[in-house]
């Protein structure tokens, strides 16, 4: 039997963690944010390219981590770049994980308050959510992985049912023309769609727990591809169901899509609460894994115990989540985090990998 001290995860579990991390707020907003940027129905192409870029960046991180088996980025960064630079980069990453955690919590609160629990104060929803989260995180990576293994199949089944039902209002003509205005509109949306795939950075940490670290690249390819399938389905169905202009005009286009039709004569007529359920589970998984990453990072960096950090970060995340004054500021926070991630996980790991390879050669 597995005990609490088991801190190893299989390749499959790593893939599950990655998918659950990637899928989050983007499911509800990506059709709008990407349609705004692209402006033609070719949004789905931008999603594909974004996925490709995420795989490339993720592979760099996986490759880097696989070179130091059993160590997280926060441990080996000082070996590669020295204590100071390694420490500063690690600190930046911890701040990043905390802020993305806060952003997910806030988005969850916005949607829950608006659609489900009108009248319940924001903080009440958020605190309950975070307490359950810390309960999971304090157990370490193994329980996280096992819970995610339960969440993912539920997500896939419900998502498949709900989106297939939306075929009722799907009109293929709304996705035409393909590349009618050339390729340049697609490129305008690539940044937005790439940022929807934030998540492979977790490889910097979980590779250390993998039974077979060399499989890390496989994890990135598999995880991002499956997440890309989700996003692709979402974007295609939303634009085919609501039209490009409809997607652009909706704050939460995916919820709008599911609310746009009703089925008579079935057990359920309305399906938006189902969608929101799996969405909240996805937000929960992203919240817990980023909280775990931040606390794990701090504990590795300062060589102290893990749990106190996890508990300390909780109020910090809460305060950060309450910081945006309105929904525009919330969306803006998301954009800012994305911009930072672009450098922190697009450029930095590549430099570290090159540096690491050079050091090896010097030794040889």
């Amino acid at each position, binding site marked *: 039997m597995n005990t609490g001290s088991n801190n190893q995860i299989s390749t499959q579990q790593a893939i599950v963690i990655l998918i659950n991390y990637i899928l989050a707020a983007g499911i509800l907003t990506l059709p709008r944010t990407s349609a705004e940027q692209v402006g*033609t129905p070719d949004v789905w192409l931008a999603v594909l390219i974004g996925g490709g870029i995420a795989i490339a960046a993720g592979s760099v991180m996986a490759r880097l981590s696989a070179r130091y088996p059993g160590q997280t980025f926060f441990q080996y960064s000082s070996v590669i770049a020295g204590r100071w630079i390694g420490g500063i980069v690690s600190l930046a990453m911890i701040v990043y994980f905390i802020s993305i955690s806060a952003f997910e919590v806030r988005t969850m609160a916005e949607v829950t308050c*608006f*659609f489900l*629990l*009108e*009248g*319940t*104060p924001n903080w*009440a929803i958020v605190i309950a959510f975070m307490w359950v989260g810390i309960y999971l995180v304090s157990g370490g990576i193994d329980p996280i992985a096992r819970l995610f293994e339960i969440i993912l199949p539920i997500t896939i089944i419900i998502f498949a049912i709900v989106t297939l039902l939306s075929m009722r209002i799907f009109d293929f*003509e709304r996705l*035409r*023309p393909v590349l*009618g*205005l050339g390729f340049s509109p697609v490129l305008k949306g690539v940044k937005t769609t790439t940022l929807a795939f934030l998540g492979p950075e977790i490889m910097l940490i979980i590779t250390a727990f993998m039974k077979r670290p060399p499989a890390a690249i496989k994890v990135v390819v598999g995880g991002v591809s499956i997440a890309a399938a989700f996003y692709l389905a979402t974007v295609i169905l939303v634009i085919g169901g*609501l*039209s*490009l*202009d*409809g*997607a*652009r*005009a*909706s704050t939460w286009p995916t919820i*709008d899509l599911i*609310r*746009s*039709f*009703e089925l008579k004569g079935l057990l359920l007529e*309305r399906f938006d609460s189902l969608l929101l359920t799996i969405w909240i589970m996805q937000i929960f998984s992203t919240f817990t894994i980023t909280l775990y990453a931040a606390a794990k990072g701090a504990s590795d960096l300062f060589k102290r115990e893990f749990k106190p950090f996890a508990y300390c970060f909780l109020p910090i995340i809460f305060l950060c989540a309450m910081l945006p004054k309105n929904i525009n500021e919330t969306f803006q926070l998301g954009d800012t985090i994305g911009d930072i991630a672009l450098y922190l996980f697009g450029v930095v790991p590549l430099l570290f990998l090159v540096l690491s390879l050079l050091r090896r050669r010097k030794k040889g």
Partner: protein
Amino acid sequence: MNLWRRVASLVLGLTAGLMLAGCWSSKEIDQLSVLIGVALDRNESKNAASEGRLEVTIQTLTTGASSLNSQGQGQTTSKPYINMIATGNSVYEAIREMSLRTDKPPIGHHLKAIVVSADLAKHNSLENLLDFFMRDNDIRPGSLVFVSSGQANRVFELKRSEEIPSFHMAGITENRYRTSKILPPTTLGKIKGEIKGGSSMLLPNIIVRDGKLKLSGAGVIRGKTKKLVGLLSEEEVLGVVWATGSGKGGVMSAVDPATKRPLVYEVNSMHSTIRSFVSGDRVSFNVSIRSIGRMMENWSKPEESSNQQFLDDQTKLFERKILDLVEQTIEKVQRQYKTDVLGFGDRLRIEHPRAWERLKANWDERFAEADIRTDVKIRIEDYGLVVE
């Protein structure tokens, strides 16, 4: 020590139990009134008490308990619904004004129909009139939007008191498999995209005739101004349905010129393909309509019902009839209303995206000048259960 732990966990457990007991802000369903319909009219009364441009009528369902209570309000008897009227300069303001008069807050989850009077839609942008409905978190994008050429709130009062007008209206739009004079459902969600994208559209026109509801034609909404520019008759809506091939069934009657007696063709399927052509700034379209169906009523020459020569002749007759109908309809929206409600612009966007980018700013003018050719081919497959 051990005892303390037990007491502490018991207290904690009980407190947690308290939290599970219910929703933070729950309201019992019999304390709510379910909003099922909203009608928007122009406020014409000069009474100082009724200020504002709009006259908003809401229709709510009454529950068994509430109809007992509402006797105090002077509501008569067994009607399953209540209509309330309020005025204001905005929709939400007017709806909230009703909270001064009823103890039950209306909830929007089950709103079925929104009716806008043609008079109001002529002078106000639909984007403004429907703004509240598109933003609200309870109201669903599946709610249907109608115009009414008469006074909008009259459609909420029917002669038969047990019928609920808002449900009835929504029910009629589901008869598309029986008649081709009904447009595809115009839901709030669909309209949102069209309004924001600046496309023109048709909204079904609901009226009261002899105390009963009737779906009669449609209102033409111009995409640029988002205001109503005119109405289409029932026949013209039939033309629109044929031109766009959006019908699911229905009949088409024609008069045999030889005998002056009617013949009826029942539609099994209809399909329309619009192709666009561009040369410079001139655009032209080809509309080809195809349909398969059966001869269902023959007053003209019953004895020849199954004669192939006769069927071939009648095929031409029906084709001619449909062609005339479609051409007249296109003529009307092109020349009189100068508003593209048939989706020609959309075809251009798909087939000639770059030309569309150039032309879309003044699309209504371009559309009015466009050359549109139509051809119709139908096939009579069978003639029911009678053979001669």
